[in-house]
């Protein structure tokens, strides 16, 4: 028996080691450069020449923007111009809603951050022209967004001519960006979209409700936003109804909503001829939320699965552990007097239904709540 156990132990141990070390049989087919893990050109089973993996020190693309460098100096290609100072952290914070770090750090493996020049060659005259050279790659990264919102393509918006360069620029910029975060984005409360739909032109969207009440993250909807959504030198008036002129398909246009609101829901739930009222739990479900429930996230009661389950209004459905001994009745705003606190819940709340008026009939002949109270009101 001991031998058998030892055998199993050894077996489990070896499997464990293999599972830790082997990246899988077909890992050569992965979209990964061999050099990421192997130092030699032809790694073999006996000599895999694995690079020592400094896992603790690795800076990956899966970092919080706040942990990333504040300012990066790009001076690899400076000929006519001085170095470019790039406020990395603020850009990283902005990127959260537009594709994340991978938006710029594209094709990066899960490993360490690759430098741009590890793929993009510094010389424009080169053998393989299938990917842009370093100059092209840098400019595409910056200008693709910058020209969209600033409508400018001038070199001087980022570059300073070498002759105009002041020695102190780096220091003053470092000061400018040190500890600086992207300003907090002011959330809209209500947005009214004007659509072409014949089932109600106006779509009222309560942004506030979705983030604060329903607890959605920014990135649940804003995944690939264009910079111009916030930054556009030409866009000055944001208070007007936003006209939705889009060539998107029906599915694409509704995809953000449909991920929570089921497709079968009535169009009129969002589309109307007038702006719609915000969500009200009481009006919608007939069960107004009291002060104890109003601040909870929906998922706290309804679970995180969408669409939400309909719940009954019995307290014990959620508060399963409550009973006459441990329930503090004062929480309801009514502190029971000594006599009544001895009773069991069902003596007043018949059928265990706490949603309806309690009954005094069990003991009293002509008493009724709330005319007579089984205690005193508290705040």
């Amino acid at each position, binding site marked *: 028996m001991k031998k058998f156990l030892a055998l199993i132990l050894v077996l489990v141990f070896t499997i464990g080691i293999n599972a830790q070390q082997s990246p899988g049989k077909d890992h050569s087919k992965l979209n990964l450069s061999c050099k990421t893990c192997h130092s030699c050109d032809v790694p073999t089973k006996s000599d895999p020449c694995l690079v020592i993996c400094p896992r603790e020190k690795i800076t990956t693309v899966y970092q919080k923007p706040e942990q990333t460098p504040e300012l990066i100096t790009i001076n690899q290609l400076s000929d006519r111009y001085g170095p470019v100072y790039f406020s990395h952290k603020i850009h990283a914070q902005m990127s959260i809603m537009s594709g994340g770090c991978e938006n710029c750090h594209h094709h990066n493996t899960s490993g360490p951050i690759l430098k741009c020049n590890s793929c993009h060659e510094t010389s424009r*005259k080169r053998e393989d*022209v299938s990917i842009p*050279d370093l100059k*092209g790659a840098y400019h*595409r990264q910056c200008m693709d967004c910058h020209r*969209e919102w600033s*409508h400018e393509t*001038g070199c*001087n918006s980022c570059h300073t001519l070498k002759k105009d360069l002041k020695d102190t620029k780096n220091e003053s910029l470092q000061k400018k960006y040190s500890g600086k975060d992207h300003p907090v984005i002011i959330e809209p409360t209500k947005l009214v979209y004007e659509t072409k739909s014949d089932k109600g032109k106006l779509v009222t969207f309560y942004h506030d409700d979705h983030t604060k009440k329903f607890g959605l993250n920014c990135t649940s909807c804003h995944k690939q936003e264009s910079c111009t959504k916030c930054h556009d030198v030409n866009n000055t008036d944001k208070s007007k109804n936003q006209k939705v002129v889009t*060539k998107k398909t029906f599915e694409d246009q509704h995809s953000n909503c449909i991920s929570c609101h089921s497709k079968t829901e009535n169009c009129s739930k969002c589309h109307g001829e007038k702006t719609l009222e915000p969500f009200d739990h009481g009006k919608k479900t007939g069960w107004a939320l009291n002060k104890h429930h109003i601040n909870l996230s929906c998922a706290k009661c309804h679970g995180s699965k969408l669409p939400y389950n309909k719940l009954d209004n019995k307290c014990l459905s959620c508060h399963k552990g409550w009973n006459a001994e441990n329930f503090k009745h004062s929480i309801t705003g009514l502190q029971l007097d000594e006599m009544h606190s001895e009773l069991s819940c069902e003596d007043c709340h018949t059928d265990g239904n706490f949603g309806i008026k309690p009954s005094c009939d069990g003991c009293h002949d002509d008493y009724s709540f709330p005319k007579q109270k089984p205690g005193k009101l508290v705040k």
Partner: protein
Amino acid sequence: MSGKSRRDFLKSTALIGAGVTGLTTTAKAGPQNILSEDRMGVLVDTTVCVGCRNCEWACKDAHNLPAGNLEDYEDRKVLDTKRRPGTDALTVVNEYSHGKNSSLPIDVKVQCMHCDHPACVSACIVGAFTKHENGTVTWDTDMCIGCRYCMAACPFQVPAFEYDKALNPMIMKCDFCFDRTKEGKLPACVEICPVEALTYGKRSDLIKIARDRIKRNPDKYVDHILGETEVGGTSWMYLASKDFAELEFPKLGKNPAPGVSESIQHGIFAYFVPPISLYALLGGIMWITKRRKELDEEVK
């Protein structure tokens, strides 16, 4: 007579004659391999171009045309009007509306396409135009007589004429920076482009790269490499996010432009059959009318 006999004279003339023909044949035997596998080209990705017009400046600078300051090219008002390459600018950038995204216009650089089968070369009556092995189409200003046949022949309407010059006006067009590429340098526009919207490389490689880009971003590009097959293929090729007709590219067939004029010309004179048959037909008509007249007279 001198010491030379008639026989000697005939011999030497025959030799000279053979030499001359030999010379001419060697001159003609070395037509450059204009469809070389290694011929170069440029892939212009109009989805990448930002319309900074640095290429316009670099081109003028490289060709000793008045270029001005690079900073002055930041003025985007120039792009409000559509321009054509001219004698003062061998390349220009024009801007078109994107349609879907108003904040991202489409910028298109225009210059000589350096056709694989250039119509200008075949139209030039003095043979001033040359198609080189590296794809470039150049012209010799010393030979040019200013007939402007090249302008009429060019399917892309590129060659420009110095109308403002009274004395010795010349044809001007992009020369693919022939002098620079000979020295191993890149064309000036390719070198300066900040976003590498212009990719310089072997034409065959560029087609592969272009196909790959379309394949990987089918939503971004229209499935068409302009210049791959147009007028028999061009050295400069374009990728775009919308139909090329909307970017004011002429709609052209796949046949080389010189093919049309050449086939007409060659067809008329092929083996002299058409002229002979024409004369035979005319002769036949003459004969018939003459005979009819004779018959009429006999009847009278």
